């Protein structure tokens, strides 16, 4: 007799995890998708747009969310982490921990709680550059479409304003952490990446007001981001007209990340083109070691090169100093002319690299903490948890992982 096929567990609800989930479910198998933060979409949903098409990721994610909504084979749990995995292929036992978000699933997203909430919190969707109330909708396309309460900032019962305002009895400020145990056939690890901590690169002066990272820049340039439809620099909310991009900020660096993060070159080209669309007269300099723009994205590189206001300088920025008016002096050697340059920019963007987010269960990693292919059978690492890659490659890999997962009975 055939034993009952257990579902596939997918850890991580970013672009890759969501893809693996829908691809498996559309074959006809059951999946359980878990995400440790309150909403799906991972890093990608914070991106302004993709290279080279310059289209918004939320377009594809909307379709994927729709695929999740209409497919009963997918169960998803947000604010949930794996705390234990045991057993073997075909028969894993996993323990999940769900952190309370204090707003129940019957929330209608009417927004009343946020209206009355008296406390503010840094908006992590915008990397803390803006604020939301402690009761908040993470962003306009948040899936699941509901509000959350930030435990750290909420004053709970001593305030209770949201509880009183909610017409749907959806708020439970005394909610407790929950532990769930499941049996699954295989585990796809789609824990993804975070960007390298730029403050560790002391010579690039991330502490300066107008030095931000590339992922932060996504929220600065996004029309639903920090400055609305304008690009405003942090120090004085003015529109910078000279912007510099510092490639390999931490990547290809033995003192930081010894590997190449594979996406930052094309991402910075994208940022440069985004700025040009908004401010055609803005002056942009991209300092690089090698322009690593693979495949047909070469066209995208040529598009940037054809723009006379985008200049590519071969030479890594070795030093950034802040001037009195919060401008930045970037120093590099222009290797091809053999001259040191000091470029004064109004804003500098550090192209920081990809660091695997990791997982609190024991898996084989390489020296840089990426999961290797040598895992217990039935445990399948995918996309940026394995190596740095761009969105499209991640989705490819996530689709491949879907097949690997359904091969396990």
């Amino acid at each position, binding site marked *: 007799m055939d034993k009952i096929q257990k579902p596939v567990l997918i850890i991580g609800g970013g672009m890759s995890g969501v893809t693996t989930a829908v*691809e498996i479910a559309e074959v006809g198998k059951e999946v359980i998708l878990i995400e440790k933060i309150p909403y799906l979409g991972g890093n990608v949903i914070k991106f302004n747009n993709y290279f080279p098409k310059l289209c*918004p990721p939320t377009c594809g994610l909307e379709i994927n969310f729709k695929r999740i909504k209409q497919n009963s084979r997918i169960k998803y749990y947000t604010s949930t982490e794996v705390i234990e995995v045991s057993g073997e292929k075909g028969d894993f036992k996993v323990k999940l921990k769900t952190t309370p978000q204090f707003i129940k699933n019957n929330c209608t*997203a009417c927004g009343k709680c946020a209206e009355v909430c008296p406390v503010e919190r840094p908006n992590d969707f915008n990397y803390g550059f803006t604020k939301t109330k402690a009761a908040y909708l993470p962003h306009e*396309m948040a899936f699941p479409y509901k509000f959350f309460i930030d435990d750290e900032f909420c004053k709970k019962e001593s305030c209770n304003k949201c509880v009183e305002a909610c017409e749907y009895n959806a708020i439970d400020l005394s909610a407790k952490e929950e532990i769930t145990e499941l049996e699954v056939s295989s585990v796809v690890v789609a824990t993804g990446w975070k960007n390298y901590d730029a403050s560790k690169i002391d010579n690039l002066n991330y502490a300066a007001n107008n030095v931000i990272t590339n992922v932060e820049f996504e929220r600065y340039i996004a029309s639903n981001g920090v400055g609305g439809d304008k690009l405003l620099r942090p120090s004085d909310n003015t529109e910078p007209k000279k912007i510099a991009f510092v490639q390999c900020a931490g990547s290809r660096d033995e003192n930081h990340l010894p590997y190449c993060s594979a996406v930052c070159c094309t991402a910075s080209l994208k940022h440069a083109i985004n700025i040009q669309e908004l401010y055609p007269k803005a002056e942009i300099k991209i300092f690089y070691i090698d322009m690593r723009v693979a*495949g*047909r994205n070469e066209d995208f590189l040529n598009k940037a090169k054809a723009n006379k206001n985008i200049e590519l300088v071969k030479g890594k920025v070795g030093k950034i100093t802040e001037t009195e008016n919060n401008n930045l002096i970037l120093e590099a050697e222009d290797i091809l002319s053999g001259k040191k340059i000091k470029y004064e920019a109004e804003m500098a963007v550090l192209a920081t690299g990809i660091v695997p987010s990791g997982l609190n269960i024991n898996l084989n990693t390489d020296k840089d903490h*990426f999961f290797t292919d040598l895992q217990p059978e039935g445990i399948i690492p995918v996309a940026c948890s394995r190596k740095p890659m761009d969105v499209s490659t991640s989705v490819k890999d996530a689709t*491949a992982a879907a097949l690997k997962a359904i091969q396990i009975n």
Partner: protein
Amino acid sequence: MNKKIGVYICSGCEIGKALDIEKLNNVVSSEQNVTICKNHSSLCSVEGFNLINDDIAKENLDRIVIAACSPRAKTEVFDFPENILLERTNLREQVAWCFEPNDENTQMAAEDYLRMSITKLNNIEVPQPFIAENISSDILVVGGGITGITSAIEGAKAGYTVHIIEKEEKLGGWLNKLHKQIPYSAPYSKLIDSEIEDRLKELEQFENIKIHTSTTINKIDGQPGQFEVYLQNGTEEKITVGSIVTSTGWNPYDANNLPHLGYGKPNVLTNVEFEEFVKNNPDKDLPKNILFIQCAGSRDKDHLPYCSGFCCGTSLKQATYIRELSPKSNVFIVYKDIRTLGLYEEFYKEVQKDDQIFFTKGEIEEISEENNNLKAIVKDTLLGEKISLSVDMIVLATGMVPNGTEDLNLNYRLGKGLPELKYNFSDSHFICFPYETRRTGIYAAGSLRAPMDIAASKEDATGAMLKAIQTIEATKRGEAVHPRSGDKSYPELYLDRCTDCKRCTEECPFGSYDENEKGTPLPNPNRCRRCGICVGSCPERVISFADYSINSVSAIIKSVEIPDEFEEKPRILAFVCENDAYPAIDMAGQKGLKYSPYVRIIPVRCIGSINKVWISDALSQGFDGILQIGCKPGDDYQCHFIHGSELTETRGENIQETLETMMLEPERIRTEFVEITDYDKIPQIINDYVEEIELIGPNPFKDM
């Protein structure tokens, strides 16, 4: 079946405060087939849901209107059995949250939307899936290189029978010609032997893999689940498969086009030639000084404008084994950029450690030859000046040219192969959906899809096989695959009215329709992706879906009450793409952005599915203007159905003729393209158009 409609109006989330629910009840009650109409302060609560569910049982309802929040919200609650037709009237995001509360115009909008929903339910049916008989679960893999082999193994591991065909006598493709392979896992330090023997052994272990070498394809007929493949191997043999992975790979760029890099001179080889040379002569002495020229013909607008992605790694590999085989040799590598992306950087560093491998960025200015000695002049180097190098051999790192997919010999109206993107790669155009294919059930994998190395090809092969399996399983359920995954509707044709105009067969982006000699469409529902572009293309109302038809949408249009007096109340009909524009309008409401309440929105599967009839119906009905809001067309198109948006532009002329015959101004139709994130632009798009229409004046058909 009798139509019994239950209408449930929610008053929660400001809807009750913005609208007179009692009046809405009155409007609803007079509509056709409405059996029951109830209100609730929160339909999405357990009580609200139970209220509906109990009514379904008690009153035998088969159609439900939920007038509450957007159909994008609360889907997990409003989840009814498949035999119940559900229509969500968006009174929250697209009425209460974006129009003035308690205003006459707001109320009118809500009333119209309820009428439209009820009318829709009166004019559609629950789709019954098209499930073909004798669906094959076998899969065809075309091309026996590493991609095809991997694909076959992975498919077999999942329990499917895979036929792998290769036109050469032997499987293995380029891997048969490799001396060594680049390491593709940590620590990326040592070259590995060609893995082809191991892969072939692995392949042979699977009984469910059928190997067909020296085989080509004469013809492929049919559709997913029922592809009939005519193989040629001396004799013709027919096999039936459910889906196809094509991985016919690549060929090196023709170095004869590169005389400026010395090709044609003695001792100037391509990377592929060099690899074969060493493979076949492992004991032969290698020369003392060898120069590698990277991007030989690649990243070059006169040759291959793209980067082939594998050549940097390959030259590093070749340099490494040269040094192993011939410790006296010096290797020089002249590059534009060293592109060892990601963890391959570790391999680059490893190769750099060798004392006799010399790297510089540079441009080749001249290659000359004298007494068997080659001299290269390199400019723009890192050494601060132009350099000249005397070498004994030059290896040109040439790129890859995709082989194309014509060999599939698809017996399709739209051609023998898969449609190609720029530079002839049979790739998807979508970042989020790299396996999107325009020939449903046929997936490209490996370097015919995009330039890639062995490791990437193997990953790609696995992903493509998953999609091939998925198509078979979806076909068995009678469901569409991405992007309308799970959709059970399919186009039904009333061919009696067909005039053989061939528009549907030409415009279908997925090649669903073949044609007989007369030009009559022969539908293949399993190839269909349910975009409805054929619905939009047909001048004779021949094509419809059970839940999306010319008649149903026409009826919806006609259900809108058009006020007589234009001055105060013009009416604009907006057809909006349900994938991007509709969510954007939702978000405008969510953000509390206000816009004109004179607009009535009808979501469409794609703006390419808008039929001219709907437009003339709307104008005859008295709508003053028509907006079509879709996804961006052009080179970087965002339309999920490839050219749906583009078609509205080409069909535009046709529609202008309709306007002319109706003696109407051309401005009465406008097409706008938005991205899903453009919610902030929605009010302006709508308001500007309303203003413009107000200037033009009322539609003269209003009173007729």
